[in-house]
């Protein structure tokens, strides 16, 4: 059962070929069998999952099920889940039992989905390798000596090893797309504002967006349809109708105009990745697409601008962790300042502290114009590059990451090298555009992701473009041998 997609599982459940309880128990068993090694889950909620599965079975029996009813999912540990530990992979929140559900969780609950547990991630979503987690690194199921990517590394590894039918992720600078690429699965980050951020622990509020990590584009369409849409509790959530993403999956791609930005195929791109990308583009030509070279001239500025905007917003967002109202509190504080400083100093890991300090510096008196304001202006230039490009093309394609999965420990000593592993994904967040990663092949036995970038609110087209490719290729069906 674990090899089936959500679309297939939903049919099986609705036809009564198996129950949600059987399915849920099968996944829980797989988690027991494999996750001690992979470390993709921080928390597994066995009893709650079985109770949800039983409720889903009743709903299925009554005939009022929807596509996700009874489907076992994993939720990134950044989403608040009522009564369940929500740690954001930080010592700061190791003791935090969320007192409410995030909107995303609420919507999956309404659909009758089953939550298996909460997945591992980089601490507060700050990282590209899942190595900054307080709960230890996640292993990439394709090679357990390599990273799964990050920050949604646990979700990516869990889906790749089929320890959940699908998972949620969040993407501030590539945190859905890059791990999806490195783990050989499908991931989509929708347009900024498409999915509610309510109850999703904030990192950089002008960039954060929730999305999904699945086996196929069809599953991503089902998942995104369930979680997207207006929510008055998130002031940046956009009031715009959600289309039925599954309805347009099979649209013909004849005449589709694909732009290939030359800056993404330049120096620094691994040869093996480049070869896989070329082959993927050839497949699109077979589907009738037209390919043109384009330029996004300010691409090189995306990483520098991001490392002002994201830390600045993080330093502000993470000021709520004060050791007083929730979360970690240091032992025997001398006074209030000592309570704040030691609770935060002991509760946050080194990467989170680095980013808080960069952000604090960038926002401190006298530096605002040189850093944050400058970065916001560069954001406009990057966004204008995309606007210009989308006048002539329907979608943009590029490698999701410049290399395949790197070795655990390889980049931990040098933050800059780590930051540059997101060089192909960050611009999309700065512009607020939707982006996807689709499995496109392998280089030296490690998966390679094809990134597809669309115009604002063009998620349906992205999913259509990805789905048609998955109809003529089988890269998305590959499962690492040890987890078949």
């Amino acid at each position, binding site marked *: 059962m674990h090899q089936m997609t959500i679309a297939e599982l939903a049919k099986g459940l609705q036809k009564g070929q198996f129950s949600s309880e059987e399915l849920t128990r099968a996944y829980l068993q797989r988690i027991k069998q494999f996750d001690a090694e992979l470390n993709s889950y921080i928390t597994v909620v066995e009893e709650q999952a079985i109770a949800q599965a039983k409720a889903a079975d009743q709903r299925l029996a009554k005939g009022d099920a929807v596509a996700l009813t009874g489907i076992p999912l994993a939720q990134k540990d950044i989403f608040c889940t009522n009564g369940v530990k929500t740690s954001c992979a930080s010592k700061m929140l190791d003791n935090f039992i969320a007192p409410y559900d995030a909107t995303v969780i609420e919507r999956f609950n309404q659909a009758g989905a089953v939550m298996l547990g909460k997945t591992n991630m980089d601490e507060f979503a700050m990282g590209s390798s899942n190595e900054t987690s307080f709960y230890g690194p996640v292993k990439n199921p394709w090679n357990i000596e390599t990273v799964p990517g990050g920050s949604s590394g646990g979700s990516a590894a869990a889906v790749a090893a089929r320890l959940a039918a699908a998972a949620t992720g969040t993407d501030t600078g590539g945190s859905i797309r890059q791990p999806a690429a490195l783990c050989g699965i499908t991931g989509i980050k929708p347009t900024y504002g498409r999915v509610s951020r309510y109850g999703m622990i904030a990192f950089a509020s002008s960039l954060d967006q929730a999305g999904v990590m699945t086996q196929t584009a069809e599953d991503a369409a089902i998942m995104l349809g369930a979680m997207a849409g207006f929510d008055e509790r998130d002031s940046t959530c956009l009031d715009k109708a959600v289309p039925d993403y599954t309805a347009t999956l099979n649209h013909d791609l004849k005449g589709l105009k694909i732009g290939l930005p030359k800056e993404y195929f330049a120096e620094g791109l691994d040869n093996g990745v480049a070869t896989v990308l070329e082959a993927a583009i050839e497949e699109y030509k077979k589907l009738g697409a037209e390919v043109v070279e384009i330029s996004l001239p300010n691409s090189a*500025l995306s990483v520098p601008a991001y490392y*002002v905007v994201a830390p600045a917003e993080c330093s502000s967002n993470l000021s709520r962790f004060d050791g007083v109202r929730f*979360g970690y509190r240091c032992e025997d*504080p001398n006074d209030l300042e000592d309570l704040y400083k030691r609770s935060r100093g002991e509760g946050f890991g*080194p990467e989170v502290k*680095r980013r808080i*300090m960069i952000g*604090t510096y960038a926002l401190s008196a006298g530096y605002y114009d040189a850093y944050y304001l400058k970065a916001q202006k560069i954001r406009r230039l990057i966004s204008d590059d995309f606007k210009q490009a989308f006048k002539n093309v329907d979608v943009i394609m590029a490698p999701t990451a410049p290399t395949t999965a790197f070795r655990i420990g390889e980049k931990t000593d040098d*933050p800059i090298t780590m930051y540059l592993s997101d060089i192909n994904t960050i611009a999309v967040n700065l512009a607020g555009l939707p982006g996807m990663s689709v499995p496109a092949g392998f280089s030296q036995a490690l998966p390679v992701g094809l990134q597809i970038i669309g115009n604002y609110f063009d998620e349906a087209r992205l999913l259509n473009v990805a789905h048609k490719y998955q109809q003529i290729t089988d890269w998305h069906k590959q499962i690492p041998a040890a987890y078949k």
Partner: protein
Amino acid sequence: MSLDSADVKKIAHLARLAVDEQDIPGYAHNLSNILALVEQMSAVSTDNVTPMAHPLDEIQRLRDDVVTENDQRDHFQQAAQQVEDGLYLVPQVIE
């Protein structure tokens, strides 16, 4: 822009972060490198560019000024380490 140990201590204080003395040189090194990366921004002129605060240039939505939340203080305070009579307890501030 290169940061020295004194700069790091000042920033850590502003951020209310206790940092071990032995870790300060490492932070100074890494933070300086990050700032060097960030300074690549100065390569481009942005004189007449409007800063982008929202990707879709949306305006902040307003709502009626009415109470929409129920009082859940006791429920939320279960997550706190020290509370008494509905108040959060911290070390004494006033002598």
